[in-house]
């Protein structure tokens, strides 16, 4: 008998997380993005092999997700009216660094409306709110890691940094994966937007190839005539080493 206060044995040796490659991420401290100057740690991160705390993570069931949650054109509509803007479908796959699909994981997005205004108590930009646009959506990936949203193309907007900085059109993405150590928030940009190259936030990513992965290409194959354009945005999460216990559940 173990002593009464002995911790539970780990049950999911499944999931050793591969180390994060920080050189492939934005630089935390970047003077051109002024807010980062006081918000970036100065001391090195404490590194060690991931532990059960990072290798487990929350799961969200289908019962939590409503049928319109991934349709931003309609999920804040007042009556029959739809959100104003260029109708787009944003879709892609969530996989990990080993190339395996990440099924049944929560993907959340938020964005400005077609005029570049957020529905947030702190956004005071004078572009008008669209009464029929909330600006948030969420969905779970399917068995093969696919997700999809219907929305409108967000407007670019100015922000206080240097005297006249503008954010390129973008959609914010939040992805869970199956382990808390895979947690990721990023942004999707749109192919051809000239503001990407002028944006100090995009430029916090020093590897151009990495930044280009955030720029979703226009995908006419998956667009629909007289209805919507399509943009494809695939997401890669941190990898987990494969073991024989792979099918064990790691969270709710």
């Amino acid at each position, binding site marked *: 008998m173990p002593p009464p206060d002995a911790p539970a044995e780990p049950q999911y040796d499944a999931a050793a997380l591969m180390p994060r490659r920080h050189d492939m*991420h934005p630089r935390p401290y970047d003077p051109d993005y002024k807010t980062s100057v006081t918000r970036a740690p100065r001391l090195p991160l404490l590194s060690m092999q991931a532990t*059960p705390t990072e290798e487990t*993570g929350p799961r969200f069931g289908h019962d939590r997700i409503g049928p319109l949650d991934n349709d931003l054109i309609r999920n804040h509509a007042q009556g029959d009216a739809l959100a104003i803007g260029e109708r787009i479908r944003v879709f892609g796959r969530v996989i990990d660094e080993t190339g395996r699909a990440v099924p049944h994981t929560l993907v959340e997005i938020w964005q400005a409306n077609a005029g570049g205004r957020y529905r947030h*108590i702190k*956004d005071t930009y004078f572009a008008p709110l669209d009464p029929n646009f909330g600006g948030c959506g969420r969905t779970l990936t399917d068995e093969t890691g696919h997700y999809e949203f219907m929305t409108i193309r967000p407007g670019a907007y100015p922000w206080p940094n240097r005297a006249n900085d503008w954010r390129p059109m973008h959609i914010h993405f939040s992805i869970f994966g199956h382990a808390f150590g895979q947690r*990721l928030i990023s942004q999707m940009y749109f192919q051809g937007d000239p503001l990407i190259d002028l944006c100090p936030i995009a430029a*916090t990513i020093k590897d151009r190839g990495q930044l280009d992965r955030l720029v979703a290409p226009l995908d006419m194959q998956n667009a629909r005539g007289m209805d919507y354009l399509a943009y494809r945005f695939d997401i890669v999460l941190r990898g987990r080493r494969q073991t024989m216990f792979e099918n064990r*559940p*790691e969270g709710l």
Partner: protein
Amino acid sequence: MLHQSDRLIETPSQTAGPYVHIGCIPSFAGLKDVYPEDLGRSPIEPGARGTRITITGSVYDGTGWAMRDAMIESWQADAEGRFAGQSGADPLVSGFCRFAADKDSGEFILRTIKPGAVAGRDGMVFAPHIALWIVARGINIGLSTRIYFEDEDNSADPLLARIEQRPRVQTLMATATGAGTYRFDIRLQGEGETVFLDL
């Protein structure tokens, strides 16, 4: 196993920005009619086993200003050290919570149960702790840290043992302020900078 060269590369992070709440805690942004309720409102349901605790704190930037726009997620084990989904885990502990710094005071509050010690590989045992993930405008990649408890035995914790400068261990300690109440402040930079983790 694949060789490093065969590995895909993780999608790069970008800041969550000032409006992260719209996507993650919409009711905080004033957006109340898209979803019935925010996800992750509480890590426990009524009846969860364990000691109820309340942790209050702020996230300070390098100037000592309590940030008003930080969003934090927490992840923890149940009172016996099991994570949700593991066999024998308390079904009333989801272990996950989302909370924001108050827009006026900059204070956050986490109401949960105290987690148990967690067993790792190779016989490692981690003292009771809660993992935090902090995002905000100006944070280009989410910051990970842990809350440990000053009133627990932390002497054999493998993570704390790796902190060379021993006074910095204190930055990961929630300090008791009363019965079941703790204070845990996070300092992003400068004097008393919190130990952030790369796990």
